[in-house]
């Protein structure tokens, strides 16, 4: 008799605990309500694609001013700070051939090609290692192929930086704001302790604008839908010899270079 009573009390206790927690959870979620009738929608002006991609015609980018104009366009719009140390932050920048295309394709490359600067940015991989390793889904791939960051969710573990084979990611080691001269009031800055990178200007695509670097490049950078044979990127790729960074590691970058 006493054992059954004890069992009964155990079960009753567990049931009460279960009920209590479930009502508490209900209460916690129920008090925040959406307004009745409100809806969310993609904006009327947004640009859509199955797979956004970029083609950089390196032949059309010659002078330092070309690069600076493009980099400035991106960094000023997105409030990217200029930090003069190894803890720097960059979304788009330049480097020499040997450092951009680390698989040494030809030992006797034409000096013009080898000595040139090349633009680097996030490759928005088909198969992004950074997304694979992120423990909170703070970085994720959208249906249109863009790899974006949710700064609100990032815990700053920097696993994505170890994962990225292209060195495309920067971490806010400290507060970035002291390093921003002019703040673009239409775009947020970032805070200390989160990782950031190029977003293919997803916020501009939503309102019908092409990425800032594309706009500033005077036609040297093309942007479009890789799945659409008539898009400017596919046309350029069909007509020219193009390469991508580190093709052997299987990430399928979305940034192509015409050399």
């Amino acid at each position, binding site marked *: 008799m006493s054992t059954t009573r004890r069992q009964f009390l155990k079960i009753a206790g567990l049931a009460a605990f279960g009920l209590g927690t479930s009502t508490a959870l209900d209460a916690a979620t129920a008090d925040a309500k959406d307004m*009745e*009738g409100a809806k*969310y929608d993609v904006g009327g002006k947004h640009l859509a694609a199955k797979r956004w991609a970029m083609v950089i015609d390196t032949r059309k980018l010659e002078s330092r001013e070309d690069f600076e104009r493009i980099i400035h366009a991106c960094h000023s719009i997105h409030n990217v700070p200029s930090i003069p140390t190894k803890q720097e932050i960059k979304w788009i920048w330049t480097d020499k051939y040997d450092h951009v295309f680390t698989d040494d394709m030809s030992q006797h490359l034409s000096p013009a090609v080898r000595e040139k600067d090349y633009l680097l940015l996030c490759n928005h991989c088909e198969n992004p290692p950074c997304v694979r390793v992120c423990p909170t889904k703070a970085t994720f791939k959208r*249906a*249109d192929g863009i790899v974006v960051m949710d700064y*609100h969710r990032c815990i700053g573990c920097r696993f994505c930086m170890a994962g990225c084979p292209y060195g495309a990611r920067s971490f806010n080691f400290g507060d970035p704001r002291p390093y921003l001269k002019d703040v673009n009031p239409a*775009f*947020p800055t970032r805070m200390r302790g989160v990782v950031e990178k190029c977003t293919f200007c997803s916020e501009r695509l939503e309102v019908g604008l092409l990425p800032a670097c594309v706009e500033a490049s005077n036609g040297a950078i093309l942007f479009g839908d890789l799945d659409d044979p008539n898009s400017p990127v596919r046309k350029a790729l069909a007509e020219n010899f193009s390469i991508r960074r580190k093709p052997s590691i299987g990430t399928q970058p979305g940034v192509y270079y015409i050399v």
Partner: protein
Amino acid sequence: MYNGKYIIPGIVIFVGLFTFPFWSNLLTPKYERPQLALPAGQKECIEPAEYMRAEHMHILDVWRDQALREGKRAYVASNGKVWDISLQNTCMKCHTNKADFCDKCHNSNSVNPYCWDCHVAPRGNQ
């Protein structure tokens, strides 16, 4: 009772500390809803003021995920009006006075949202 001279003062002190929120509330002045600077020339917010007062944090939370994660940057309000989802470019376009709108109420309620660590407050307001 054994050790009553220790136990009873102990209980008194415990009860005193435990009820601190109640009696400290009686002693301090009554809470008054802060007077906020409302946008001049604007009659209505995206949703009724009562709802916004109670649920703006929820709506911002959903906005964040919808815009950033779902790619949905248009908010169709309950009255059918469409708004761009943006704290900086929609909310703060009308509520230009962060100090006398956001901060005033947050301060008197002792909440410290970290929105402004990233989001840029309207100019002339920093």
